[in-house]
């Protein structure tokens, strides 16, 4: 039974490959689905929609977003990994996909074997913010305070293993202190406790924290981007402060099922990179605290591998066990 199924699958694959040159040239002839592996409304989802809109204009076919949320992107990724490699079902992924390698003991797909990279799309800088009752005016104060009160402060995150958690732990180990981790569900629910001083500092996306900074409820002390953020005059980057290891951000990109014809990948790659250069897209992304982060398919592949190498040991050293 299994043999015959394999045989049929093989035959279908062969048929598809045989047809590939002709259909790859005409691609796309019908609408494309981008699977967004998270619930609608978050900033990654919105970025996926901004790219879908711009790419559909240059590809000349409608692109719909299908939100397949859940299990930290796993369910959506799985759906694309097993989809037909014809360029009509692709994945809009975030850095979660790499962090998942250290979070989940068993994944039903192989990030490096079941996907062909298309392009990176955008990156979002993170910022360090403190509650206003904390007696620190700038990052130097913060380091001093943290070293004088090891283990006394606490910070929220969007869940264990989330980038907001890992960055805070990295920061504490960089400055040689420690603080208690308090997980929340989702990015926004951490703010009431942070504003009222029940938790003390947090690393979060610039877009989510800037309104509280402008209103005086929180103070942003440093940003993880390479350049300072225009909306935050006078706030230094971590690199300027002497912590280059903290220069990281959450990133996003597009992946296709493995075996997608190279001509199709090339068309998608061009569409994505054109979108990232479109002033309207740049402006729309900017409203969500995101910066375009274009790359070739090849570079994206290398980037994925290097990110996996970088985060794996960090997560292990933080004591995060795959479940």
């Amino acid at each position, binding site marked *: 039974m299994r043999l015959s199924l394999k045989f049929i699958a093989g035959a279908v694959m062969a048929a598809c490959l045989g047809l590939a040159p002709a259909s790859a040239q005409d691609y796309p002839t019908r609408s494309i689905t981008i699977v967004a592996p998270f619930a*609608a409304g978050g900033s990654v989802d919105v970025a996926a*929609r901004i790219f879908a809109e711009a790419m559909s204009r240059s590809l000349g076919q409608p692109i719909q977003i299908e939100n397949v949320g859940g299990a930290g992107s796993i369910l959506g990724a799985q759906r694309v990994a097993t989809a037909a490699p014809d360029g009509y079902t692709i994945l809009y992924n975030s850095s979660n996909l790499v962090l998942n390698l250290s979070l989940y003991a068993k994944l039903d797909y192989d990030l490096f074997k079941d996907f062909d990279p298309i392009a990176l799309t955008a990156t979002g800088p993170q910022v360090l913010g403190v509650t206003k009752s904390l007696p620190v005016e700038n990052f130097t104060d913060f380091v001093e305070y943290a070293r004088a009160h090891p283990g006394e402060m606490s910070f929220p995150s969007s869940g*264990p293993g989330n980038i907001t958690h890992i960055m805070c732990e990295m920061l504490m180990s960089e400055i040689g202190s420690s603080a208690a981790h308090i*997980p*929340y569900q989702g990015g926004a629910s951490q703010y*009431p406790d942070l504003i009222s001083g029940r938790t003390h500092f947090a690393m979060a996306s610039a877009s989510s924290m800037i*309104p509280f900074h402008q209103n005086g409820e929180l103070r942003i002390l440093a940003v993880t981007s390479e350049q300072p953020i225009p909306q935050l005059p006078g706030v230094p980057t971590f690199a300027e402060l002497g912590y280059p290891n903290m220069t990281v951000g959450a990133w996003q990109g597009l992946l296709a099922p493995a075996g997608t014809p190279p001509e199709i990948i090339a068309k998608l790659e061009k569409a994505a990179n054109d979108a990232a250069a479109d002033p309207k897209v740049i402006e729309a992304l900017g*409203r969500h605290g995101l910066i375009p982060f274009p790359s070739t398919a090849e570079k994206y592949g290398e980037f994925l591998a290097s990110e996996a190498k970088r985060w794996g040991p960090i997560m292990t050293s933080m004591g995060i066990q795959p479940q």
Partner: protein
Amino acid sequence: MEFAFLDHLGLGFATAFTIGNLGYCLVGALLGTLIGILPGVGPAATIAMLLPVTFTLSPVSALIMLSGIYYGAQYGGSTTAVLLNLPGESASAVTTIDGYQMARRGRAGPALAIAALGSFAAGCFATLLIALFAPPLTRVALMFGPAEYFSLIVLGLIASVVLARGSLVKALAMIAAGVLFGMVGTDIYTGAARFTFGTTEMREGISFVAVAIGIFGISEILRNLENERDRDVSVQPIGSLMPSREDLRRSAGPVARGTVIGSLLGILPGGGALLSSFAAYALEKKISPRSSEFGHGAIEGVAAPESANNAGSQTAFIPMLTLGIPGNSVMALMMATLIMQGIVPGPAVMGNYPELFWGVIASMWIGNLMLVVLNLPLVGLWVRLLKVPYFVLFPCIMAFSAIGVYSMALSTFDVIYISVFGLIGYTLVKLDCEPAPFVLGFILGPMLEENLRRAMLVSRGDFSVFLTEPLSAALLFLAALAILIVSLPTINRKRDEVFVED
């Protein structure tokens, strides 16, 4: 502040009363009612689908339309809760208890009309409350930390024992079972998978909508199919469509109290609006001179939770608009809409975009008025739905439920859930166990755990925090009082009487 709020409301009505915005309000309210009636298709899914459309509208029009969908869905959800025992929204789960009993007694018309009128009254009050007190109320929301939430939920769970009629032990067992089912999924503190049997799908936990549809709706279908002739809904003559003077008199108090409870709890971002319908029902059942009628079609049991959930869903806008903190997934989507338009929700919105802030508030009131005008004449139409032969109706309900649940996450797993919970619900009914406490435990259990553990993390394992925080201590004191009242012999006897009468 003096009468500045009158100027503000004036500005708001001037913004909302343009032909275009009235149109968007109407479209939103209509669409919301429709999706509220389709089980499973909730406002969150609809708003997500409409998100691209809103880019072409002005921010005010977009938000007016989306909020129309949101409270329209609350109306629609109660319609199916009353007629078919199918709560489309978690907030209308309580309405099924007495609303469906009223429908079975041929009083579906008054139940639906009271739900609409009560919601309207609640909507008017909540609108005024937001207009007058939005900024100070935001501060109240910030006073609630994990310890306060924990104590509030404890109070809620204890008070909910009165939700059940019949055996106290069974009610407690049902709450415990609900809490356990609520534990399924990924533990947010450690990332550990609990009760997932190694499946990826169950890591997300069990979808509430699937549980509610299965345990209320599907189990009711199974029960009805046992014996076609027992299906008293179609056998009972459908009485008057409109509530009698007596109905209105009996509902006035519950509507007023429900509105206050809903308005206050709605401000809390951590699921306060959800709690409010349960809390309002529990309070009415406790203080009503006719508490024995509750569970058998008491109109107060429809009026109170319906007003509470409408008031709560409206005051839920306060933390979103003034702090940028969404209280639920619908609010998160509305925030995304605003951000797409270049407006970052937060403390600056009221000052920088007054016409947006007050326009939306004014449109809430207009939208509620539209819903009453739309829904009162529709009551007759909905009630006629009960005349549809059951062998036609039940496959339709099943199909719509399955499609609706599937469309939420495109997961076949959710369709399996409604079947499984349908069977569980049927078994529970056969064992004389109430589904309402189960659902309450399912909703509140995970919140209880989340806040208990967070309070412990914040206080570094010091349990005294629940008593040293004044607000938390007060709530726990009320909970202790509630236990005392429930265990008093006279009240116990009253419970038994209810049981015997059943």
